[in-house]
């Protein structure tokens, strides 16, 4: 199986200090509302051939009615 560098690393978890978290603060990321996700989320988008990354970024903003989005670029 072909792997990128980080995919070869086995991540272990070490406990430095056992601690509980207080559920009165923050929240499980999977419980965020769709509205929160639209303003603070990630889309793994298959960019169509043709339009530039910037144009696709604009389409996404129009579809979702937001005014800020960014892409991780296309390096060829």
């Amino acid at each position, binding site marked *: 199986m072909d792997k990128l560098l980080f995919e070869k690393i086995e991540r272990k978890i070490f406990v430095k200090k056992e*601690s509980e978290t207080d559920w009165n603060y923050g929240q499980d990321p999977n419980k965020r509302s769709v509205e929160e996700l639209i303003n603070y*989320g990630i889309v*793994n988008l298959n960019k169509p051939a043709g339009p530039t990354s910037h144009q696709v970024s604009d389409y996404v903003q129009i579809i979702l009615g937001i005014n800020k989005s960014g892409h991780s670029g296309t390096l060829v």
Partner: protein
Amino acid sequence: MALGKATRIVQTLLNSGKEYICLMYLHKPVDENEIHRVVKKFTGRIKQLPPIRSAVKRRLRTREIYYLNILEIDGQNVLFKVGCEAGTYIRKICHDFGQELKTGAHMEQLIRTKAGPFNDSSWHSLHDLKDAYEFYKEGDEKEIRKIILPIEEAVRHLPKIWVLDSTVDSVCHGAYLSIPGISRLNNFNENETIAIMTLKEELVALGTSALNSDEMMNKEKGLAVKTTKVFMDRNVYPRFTSKK
């Protein structure tokens, strides 16, 4: 693509490994064995001069090619899959491949199949997004939840440190993380990009490790991570007040 406040996360994806499927066109017919021989020259550490039209300074740089597999050879068309370090120019690989074969070659088509933790098995089209958004407007959020993911998905490939509730807010204010604030940690080296997380698995910030994970386990105080980018809003967690 990152949305709204999440946009600043894209830098970490730019800096992470990529996989592409590329169609290369050879300018003259070449024996298949010769192609397979040249492939070996394009795996491991390679030297690359960025193309004339590129966003970076044109000087020879070294990049790691983790794998380069020929998928199909059809006449002068060569389809291959390549896993590489961030900042590798595939167009340049094709060009240099042609030079090595002494026939010339160019990149015909390119698809990115991996970028950091994201791959082509979970990607969506603009149409999927539009449809899902319409469903959501009509009250069904099942589809859009499959497409728009929490920002934490974009740091899945990074080593992490989980911090105490009482430490979260100081990091939100831009403070460096010190060792007593750590609850759990992954294995990592010094000078790596680290995702600082809450114990609820929320992303707080990104930073650079000042020590490796073993040293952090063994020491009781001192600097652990230099915070570089804060994502969580301030005052989500209570402000820690020292007991005097």
